[in-house]
């Protein structure tokens, strides 16, 4: 161990140990808080992702049907005429130091009249496919928010956990070892000193006698 066995060093070490312990307690609380947050979001995430997958399947099915019945070219040409983009705003939120996106959805769905293609020239199958895809986008935006939040939280939990463990099993014990070493060394030096004084005293008495 490469520490100077001095009183100053011991005082410094004790201070650092106290601080490390405080940090450890705080991090532990942070970890528990994150896990609690995580568990509430997890339920939502499961539901939302399942929903999205289901909507994706539906949308694909309807699109395939439209393409089969009306022809790929018709579907593609209609796709070109739709020009109302789905819009949303993205903000950032901070959960215990984790930056997560918050997505505000605005009208993703449009009424038939708002879509820029003629109702007469197209069929209900295409309308349905468009509608299904609009619903899918809605679901995707919801997933985007929740899934990213969840991923971010998992990462943060892992990192916090690692730090808690490092403090608990490595940093604090090694500092405590060093502190113990210094106390023993200081005691040893004290004893040496006493013996030395006694010897000197003995020699002095001998000389005087």
């Amino acid at each position, binding site marked *: 161990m490469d520490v100077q066995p001095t009183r100053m060093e011991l005082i410094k070490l004790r201070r650092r140990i106290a601080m490390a312990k405080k940090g450890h307690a705080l991090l532990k609380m942070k970890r528990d808080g994150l896990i609690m947050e995580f568990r509430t979001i997890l339920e939502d995430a499961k539901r939302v992702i399942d929903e999205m997958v289901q909507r994706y399947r539906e949308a694909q099915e309807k699109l395939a049907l439209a393409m089969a019945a009306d022809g790929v070219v018709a*579907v593609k040409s209609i796709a070109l005429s739709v020009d109302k983009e789905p819009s949303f705003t993205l903000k950032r939120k901070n959960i215990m130091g984790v930056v997560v996106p918050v997505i505000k959805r605005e009208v993703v769905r449009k009424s038939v009249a708002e879509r820029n293609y003629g109702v007469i020239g197209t069929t209900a199958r295409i309308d349905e496919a468009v509608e299904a895809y609009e619903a*899918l986008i809605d679901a995707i935006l919801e997933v985007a928010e929740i899934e990213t939040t969840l*991923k971010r939280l998992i990462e943060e939990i892992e990192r916090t956990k690692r730090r808690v463990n490092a403090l608990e099993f490595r940093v604090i014990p090694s500092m405590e070892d060093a502190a113990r070493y210094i106390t023993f060394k200081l005691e040893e030096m004290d004893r040496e000193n006493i013996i030395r004084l006694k010897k000197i005293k003995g020699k002095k008495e001998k000389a005087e006698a």
Partner: protein
Amino acid sequence: MKKLAIIGDPEFNLGFRLAGVRDIFDVVSDEELVQTVEKVLESEDIGVAVIKHEFLKKLPLALKRAVDESVEPTFVAVGAEGGAEEIREKIRKAIGVDLWK
């Protein structure tokens, strides 16, 4: 106002075109995929990027990590199973218990 981007093969993208999304990237080859993802990552006005689940799995590791960590744009994997499997694996690794289902 942020935009939605779609990365996928032409077939995957057609439906999104129908819904009015304009920032759509048709990707056919793997090199194109990498280039497109990099471009989307750097883009200022794209808020959410939808990527086909199979494509996400194909990305090189470093890029995949960048995609995972990016908040703006946020990437969402869409496909027959969604990103559920990866999240499940991550949860298992981070918490030590499979909390998913």
